[in-house]
């Protein structure tokens, strides 16, 4: 069965027809030609497909496209305008936070979404109180919160360094609850 949906992807409105079985990830990659989000497992187990939906990070392989009709999506290709890089992307380059680059757009979207979650006061499994530990986040918090994004090249040391650079370059003011 097909359905017509509209997605706002990286600032562009796209209306198109999809098979209702199509995941958001496949809609982006196969239908819209946006291959910035990657497919590493198609089962929500690796994070390579991470995109921001209304600013929140999700595994786009676990979402059905039709369930997101009208949604606003940001992929790593749309984090900054074409001539610029998002501070998180700059930090991944500076810290060599990748090797093959296949997990990287997902890592970067995830990191951006993750800092927003921390900024909104969400605790993680390693937080000692009701909110995140440390302003900016300490390494243990970063590692925990980024553990949904696998990197087989093993760039984790540099990914943590990159997120540190990015959060220090653009310090987020923690909301008081």
């Amino acid at each position, binding site marked *: 069965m097909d359905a017509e949906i509209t997605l706002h992807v990286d600032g562009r409105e796209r209306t198109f027809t999809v*098979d209702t*079985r*199509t995941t958001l990830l*496949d809609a982006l*990659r*196969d239908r819209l*030609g946006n*291959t*910035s*989000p*990657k*497919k*590493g*497992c*198609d*089962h929500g*187990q*690796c994070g*390579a497909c991470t995109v921001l939906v209304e600013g929140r990070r999700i595994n786009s392989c676990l979402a059905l496209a039709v369930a997101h009709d009208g949604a606003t999506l940001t*992929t*790593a*290709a749309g*984090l900054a305008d074409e001539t610029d*890089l998002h501070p998180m*992307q700059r930090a*991944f*380059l*500076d810290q*060599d936070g*990748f*090797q*093959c*680059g*296949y*997990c*990287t*757009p997902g890592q*970067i979207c995830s990191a951006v979404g993750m800092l927003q979650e921390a900024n909104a006061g969400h605790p993680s499994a390693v937080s000692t109180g009701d909110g995140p530990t440390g302003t900016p986040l300490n390494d243990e918090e*970063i*590692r*925990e919160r*980024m*553990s*949904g*994004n*696998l*990197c*087989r*090249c*093993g*760039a*984790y*040391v*540099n*990914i*943590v360094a990159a997120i540190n650079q990015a959060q220090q370059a653009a310090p987020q003011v923690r909301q008081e609850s």
Partner: protein
Amino acid sequence: MTVQHTGTAGQDLERIDGVAKVRGLAPYAYEHQVDNPLYLHPLQATISRGRIETIDTTQAQAAPGVVAVMTHLDAPRLAGTDDAELAILQSPAVGFRGQFIGAVLAETPEAARAAAALVRVEYTEEPHEAELRADRDDLYAPEQVNAGFPTDTRDGDPESAIAAAQVVVDQTYTTPFEHNNPMEPHTTVAQWVGDELVLHDSTQGVHPVRQTLAPVFGIAPEKIRVIAPNVGGGFGSKGVPHAHVVLTAMAAQRSNGRPVKYALTRQQMFFLAGYRTPTIQHVRLGADASGQLSGIIHDVIEQTSRIKEFAEQTAVPARMMYAAENRATSHRVAKLDVPVPSWMRAPGECPGMFGPEVAMDELAEACGIDPIELRVLNEPDIDPESGKPFASRHLVECLREGARRFGWADRDPQPRSRLVDGWYTGTGVASSTYPARRQTGNTARIRHDRAGRYSVQIGAVDIGTGAWTALTQIAAEALGCNAADIDLQIGDTDFPVATVAGGSTGTTSWGAAIIAAAQAFRDRHGDQPAVGAHAEGEAGENPAAQEYALHSFGAQFAEVQVHADTGEIRVSRMLGVFSAGRIINPRTARSQFLGGMTMGLGMALHENSVMDPRFGMIVNHDFAEYHIPTNADVRDMEAVWLDEVDEHAGKLGARGIGEIGIVGAAAAIANAAYHATGIRVRDLPLTADRFLA
């Protein structure tokens, strides 16, 4: 006065492919825009051995969106069927569970997948065997082992030496069945354009793919073009083309010229893309009371697939690592009804340095000496195997430098004596080594495109190693210009021939060709070349390899915490110190060393493909159950190297760094876990249950 050029070899240069990669705009195999593609979903065998009796595709053929269903009954006949892994759909025989038995081609991936589920297959099953055990009576000695090494070696009389030794370690160690699992799944996009086959393939070597496929399809290699500018990791599993490349190219013969796209699912990769064989390693060491080795025996048992032999060279490092007059090594292989094993990062050295390096730790304890001192004591003057001098052997410096940085001097050797907040803490060390080989058969082409700008072409592939950057730097140095003046072009068989990105040979082998091309270019065109001037250069063998044994060395240090009540194990610190010749780019090199160590951490703690021998089934065939390290598993980890140029490793002076980072890492962690808990685990991975004695 010498001009200092920017970005040349040895300098810290940001990845030149990096901006595209952080945006996700660098195209991997699946992502090249092709017109009007069809999508493939395979049919896979659901038995481990036997034959297909009937295969009913009626319903699938009639399903919406389906263009073709292909089985052994109607698939194109292959011209070359010598390689049984690649000779798919040529007969009803099934060699292992998960083997390709057909494919559905459809207008969308969803339609292909849904239709594949409608195919009904009936089999006659034959008894299968899928369990590797040391007591099998059908173990055999292969003619040779991977990379052309002899199966067995023997010097002196190690049995007698060990029988007479004052101190003996005689233990069996095992390493598990492991899967490479690069993040980018194996992917092929195939299109026949007339009698030419064009492949966008996720591979470690474009020319090797065409060379392998040409006889399979009975066409000249020049009729196959393989394109792979960006590859999302391989770790050996994309070193040789696996059956999916053949399947996709065959399907493209049924698509009326339309391109066919196929990316393996993560689950399919566990059956169809190679893996590391499990090993059972019997290690015997004999030494005098001071720790001086007199005998080393390393006997390895491993598996291969019944349909195709891949015999890993696991015992090879024991042949050259330590001085002992009497040494023997052997490999025995079981042919099982299992998927075809292949290369996985440092085949041979990686598992082969686990048993012996844990055994060395056991010997050090038995002799009452420090494990670093034991290794220093047994340092050979020349390569024990070949009798040649080492071109460069700085193992002792690596161990000493690591000890200094890691704080080894303060270590109390007593195991199970540091309990803090419920965690036992310990530290361990192991040696690392990897051979430095140069592959012949590489050519590079250099052209002066416009004033001061050079294009450099070679069919090399960057699988994440940093080849885009390192080869640019090598070209800049060789031509005497800035890195920014080089337009590197790689990953395409339209460029001059190149060997595989494997065996830690890429940068050195391709780099040698680029240096030769630059030399030819300058010889012919001088320092003021005309626009359009060009030259090719080919790299021959490294003549020094005749006279010297060329190996890299390293020292791995680990600190481990094991929870006293739950057995939970964490690696709190890791340090690697490596001697690998000249480092072309310190930034990307550090990443590669750390990446190898991280994969070694996975080998130590997590990785284990579980075979259910009743069904020949790899039961944990996804990332939910086959665990690789996550971000939270890696804490304080650092890699450093000795500042050196190996004058015997060719003009570049480098020895290759892709694999040494994983070698010895698991042994260092296992040794640290023993120091923490007093429990000696000889079987990987080191799961919590092992520490609940």
